[in-house]
């Protein structure tokens, strides 16, 4: 970009009537960052980036904060914070106040925190003498504050796996408020999570389309007991996070060659897999060695995050198209999701990638033993004709049982998360125990995390975030408070929607570029 173009872009952001002050500032920061040269990479890597075979999700040219941070909030509550001049809280009011302040100081790629901690177990120690009425009233106000202060649909709180009154109160408040923020995941363990709690969570899904459900046993096996689910199905170690998320477009990789399936697996896939890793490495080195985030940020200085618990996310998407293109090349009619040889090929591709990621050393990734975490990436609004992560394309999903049987074998490979969405017949609303059965069965089958959509729900989930159908309908008529609606409308129409008024909330992570 030359000087004149740069000035034009800055001017267009500053004079854009549909952006709030905060949104303009965020985009101006992006423009300034992108005035710097990209971290040095080889020619082949740069070419793959330009062609969209690999993508940095528009994180920016000069990373100066990690993409995702999962602060150790328990440690912060125990020790207090010198930087924030906050003593350790001694009661529920102080704990809620402490967390609200700390949340506003946690960066991420979007500028907002993507992880609010195991919120029920964080608050439980402070609730001993609090009556049920007071507990509900205080949590309700806290919940409203989160929605208004953190205007991003990817702000994510975790619940469970054990039952407790804070958790039950949060579900009750969720059903009343029906807010977009925060997003929620419930950790589910066959021994620790009672059916009655799961039923309560399922009825909350009927009202608000959250929480998501997470296979606690599997997560603990891969990440240890201190793990968190952040943003949109991204799981990492607490006190750690992910420096970056760089993703490989498997559809483009398949289109980049015309050879056999065997040559794809042996040559083409490893070639582009390495270019994806090269880009990750360059970005991580800039963040840690040039921007020196971990040397100066108070979260790192006070031990609320720790570089040793960080890693980076190696994302993949477009598996469905890649498999179908390869099957077509081979003259096969089998397609991803049909239970035939296409599914077998999909498992081989992901196993090959997992083996690559396991072998590929990555700097400053001690949180995953010096390697990256494989991640099934659920898409951004500019994705065209390519299916999120390892999902079966919308409209082509088989029945729930076959759907689970097809995708479950992929889940164990994606330590840092995979998202699948199941459409469930609305008859379960009269029989939430049926959904409890399906959740239990899905985890026994090896699913890591998933959510479900009820066909006639007021909420509709499109690519893994949350938006209200009624908001979508109102969108064309007037202003919208939540940016996730902006994104969802973009996803539906596959084009940026004409906005007439500023929106309080934007989803920077999924609509990462200004002035589209």
């Amino acid at each position, binding site marked *: 970009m030359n000087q004149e173009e740069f000035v034009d872009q800055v001017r267009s952001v500053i004079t854009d009537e549909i952006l709030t002050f905060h949104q303009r500032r965020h985009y101006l920061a992006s423009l300034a960052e992108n005035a710097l040269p990209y971290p040095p990479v080889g020619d082949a890597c740069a070419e793959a980036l330009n062609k969209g075979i690999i993508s940095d999700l528009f994180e920016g040219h000069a990373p100066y904060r990690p993409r995702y941070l999962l602060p150790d909030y328990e440690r912060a509550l125990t020790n207090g914070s010198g930087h924030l001049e906050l003593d350790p809280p001694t009661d529920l009011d102080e704990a809620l106040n402490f967390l609200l302040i700390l949340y506003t100081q946690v960066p991420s790629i979007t500028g907002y925190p993507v992880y609010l901690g195991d919120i029920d177990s964080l608050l439980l120690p402070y609730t001993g003498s609090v009556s049920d009425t007071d507990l509900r009233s205080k949590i309700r106000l806290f919940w409203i504050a989160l929605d208004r202060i953190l205007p991003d649909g990817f702000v994510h709180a975790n619940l469970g796996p054990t039952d407790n009154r804070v958790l039950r109160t949060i579900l009750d408040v969720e059903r009343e408020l029906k807010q977009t923020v925060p997003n929620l995941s419930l950790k589910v363990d066959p021994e620790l999570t009672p059916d009655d709690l799961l039923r309560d969570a399922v009825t909350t899904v009927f009202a608000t389309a959250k929480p998501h459900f997470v296979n606690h046993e599997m997560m603990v096996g891969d990440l240890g007991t201190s793990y968190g689910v952040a943003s949109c199905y991204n799981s990492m170690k607490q006190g750690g996070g992910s420096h970056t998320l760089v993703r490989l477009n498997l559809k483009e990789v398949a289109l980049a060659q015309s050879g056999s399936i065997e040559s794809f697996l042996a040559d083409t896939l490893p070639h582009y897999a390495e270019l994806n890793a090269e880009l990750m490495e360059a970005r991580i080195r800039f963040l840690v060695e040039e921007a020196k985030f971990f040397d100066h940020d108070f979260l790192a200085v006070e031990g609320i995050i720790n570089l040793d618990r960080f890693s980076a996310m190696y994302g993949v998407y477009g598996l469905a198209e890649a498999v179908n293109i390869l099957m077509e090349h081979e003259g096969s009619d089998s397609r991803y999701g049909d239970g035939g040889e296409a599914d077998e090929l999909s498992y081989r591709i992901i196993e090959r990638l997992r083996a690559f990621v396991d072998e590929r050393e990555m700097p400053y990734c001690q949180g995953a033993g010096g390697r990256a975490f494989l991640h099934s990436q659920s898409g951004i609004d500019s994705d065209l004709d390519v299916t999120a992560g390892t999902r079966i394309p919308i409209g082509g999903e088989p029945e729930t*049982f076959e759907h689970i049987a097809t995708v479950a074998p992929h889940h164990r490979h994606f330590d840092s998360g995979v998202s699948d969405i199941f459409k469930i017949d609305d008859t379960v609303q*009269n029989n939430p*125990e*049926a959904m409890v*059965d*399906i959740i239990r*069965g899905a985890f026994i*089958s090896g699913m890591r995390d998933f959510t479900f959509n009820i066909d006639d729900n007021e909420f509709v989930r499109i690519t893994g975030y949350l938006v209200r159908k009624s908001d979508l309908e109102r969108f064309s008529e007037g202003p919208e408070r939540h940016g996730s609606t902006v994104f969802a409308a973009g996803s539906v129409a596959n084009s940026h929607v004409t906005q007439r008024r500023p929106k309080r909330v934007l989803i920077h992570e999924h609509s990462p570029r200004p002035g589209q």
Partner: protein
Amino acid sequence: MNTAPGLVNSTIRFSAVDGPGNRFVVFTQGCNFNCITCHNPYTIMECTSCGVCVRSCPEAALTIQAGPLVVVDGVACTRCDICIDVCPEDSTPLARYVEVKALVAEIRAVAPFISGVTVSGGEATQQPGFVRSLFLAIKSDSTLSHLTTLVDSNGSAPLGVWEGLMDVMDGAMIDLKALDPDVHVRLTARGNADVLRSIDYLAQHDKLTEVRLLIVPGYNDGLDAAEHAAVWLRDIDPDMRIKIIGYRAHGVRVEASHIRDADPVELDEIAGVFADHGFRDLTVV
């Protein structure tokens, strides 16, 4: 062990509407009632191999061979259901005899996802040997015995049939079409003495999972009828689960075209009658 195969219309692996939790459902073929409101009239009769459907099939997927039923080519069949539309017998060529062993294998695959198995119909108790074999196979398999076994029935089975299922069946869900025998005849072409006896017997043996009342406007939708049914059922067991279901015209035969859908307000009034008589486990759908 008696391993009589069942004449089965179809199976559903995940159902949220055939008893508590998620359930595997076996729909048997053949029913001894002929309800004017039947939503699946093609499950009433057994195939007579008359051949009408064979000549109508656009895919030529149907043939008559040595056995008693029309044979379906599962690959060629597109499930267009023209065979069901043209069947003069209220039947279908798609029903087939299924071995208990094959059903158990299907159930085993979905076992982690379900609370139990329901045999519905058709009328399941028309094939008591098959139902018993299936339930016994489930209950005597240590990996499946936690699954609950339920029968969804019109309640017409003689007591001997229920007695034969007592040790392998966890419960039955019984339709009470009408307490008034004349109304029952108008709705089903059969009297209801067996149905009333079944409800009583199952309740006494703690096997009555629920009683369903299908409310059909112009037949059994009066508050008087609800009052009588509530009193009769209360005297048997006021803690029983009652499901009040509004009639919907979807799928019924032309003979039922004069019947309108049940009004949700009327259904709530009927539920109110049951609530007044102390029933607490009440659902309206």
